[in-house]
């Protein structure tokens, strides 16, 4: 379940980041179409920011988790008299 959630968040983040890049390029060509300063884009930017934060937390949690696991393994190997 957690894996699916992380995967979904990352997929949505990729789509949102591509959308933002497309809007930036289009805005450069035709600013009067107002691709960046409208309420929909502002809403999408909020979603993008919140999901980025969530994704960042996931990544940090997995790194911290990974460190502890590695630490445990090292400890165990020491206990078994590898020195």
């Amino acid at each position, binding site marked *: 379940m957690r894996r699916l959630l992380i995967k979904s968040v990352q*997929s*949505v983040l*990729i*789509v*949102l980041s*591509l*959308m933002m890049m*497309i809007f930036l390029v289009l805005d*450069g*060509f*035709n*600013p*009067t*179409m*107002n*691709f960046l*300063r*409208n*309420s*929909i884009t502002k809403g*999408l930017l909020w979603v993008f920011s919140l999901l980025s934060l969530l994704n960042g937390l996931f990544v940090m949690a997995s790194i911290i988790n990974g460190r502890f696991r590695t630490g445990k393994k090292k400890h165990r190997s020491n206990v078994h008299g590898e020195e």
Partner: protein
Amino acid sequence: MLYSVSMNREKEKRRRRRILYESIRTAVTTLLLLAVSLLTFAWFHHARPKQRMSAGLVTATPTPAAVLQALDQDALSSPQPPSASDAPIITPEPTPVYIPWIEKFADKFTADVVSTEAGYSSPDLSVQITQVQYGKAKTAMYYLADIYLTDIFQFETVLAKDTFGRGLRESVKEMGQRSGALLAITGDTYGNQDTGIVIRNGVVHRQEKSEFDVCVLYYDGSMRTFSPAEFSLDQAIQDGAYQAWTFGPLLLDEDGQPIPDAQLNTSKNIRRANPRAGIGYYEPGHYCFVVVDGRTDDASGLTLEQFSQLFADLGCKAAYNLDGGRSAEMYYNGSVLNDPYKGGRSVSDCLIIRETFGKEP
């Protein structure tokens, strides 16, 4: 041993194939999601027809008598020449006199209606169309409509579907035909934005300023262009704003001089050579519409700096850029004059000149 190595290779191959398959599947899913998201965005952003709440403010409608009075007051408030005792005698400046446009431009009008491919004249309206080659190729053309009015109400703005809203679109030709216009060009495509001053035929539809320059046509026939910082809606209403467009940029400075490329209030991409549409102002009652074809091998269009220079060369006092590119279109007497890029496209509004002679107001 050999069998085991071969098995391992087979496993590795299968693993790689699975990774490749998974990567392709993820990429395709992401692209599909992106396409669906962009289409949904486009639908809600500009395609979905939606009526907007108009601010509904009505600007003041000064009569010619009020204009005359205002001119007289201007004359009274101008500094008086000092008396002979303490300064040399200076000839006083002539008091401005209001001359009805029908008298002022009398030589432009005809007793009967004369309608040809090159122009139209009647007892109260004159529109002369000139086709000018601007590049080396014969197909590089711009169209100039020289307009003389007798009444400001001959100059109107038509909204697509006759409704102030978003995603409402019609071609310039459709709007021109529906409104009975003699001449029409693309407007400011206000429907693409949530902000930007919109005043149409004396009604303020949108009051929020944007970062784009504003062009105001007043009931007295004068036209002024403003940077966003200079513009005040209250002042415009007080001064009798009849139309206000937000697109731009403004193309001439206060002295009617062209504006250098770097000082034009728009992005670099917009400043490049493109098909163009714009309005020029000479004096109250005398205007011009210009549409430039472009984006073809022969005719690239004009840069905004060249467009600015064009209006300066025409002798305009103020000029303003309207929606160009594929939208740039000029309609005259039942047909589209120019060759819009990819056949043109539908827009949210257009500027029209309408004959009122012999018609009920």
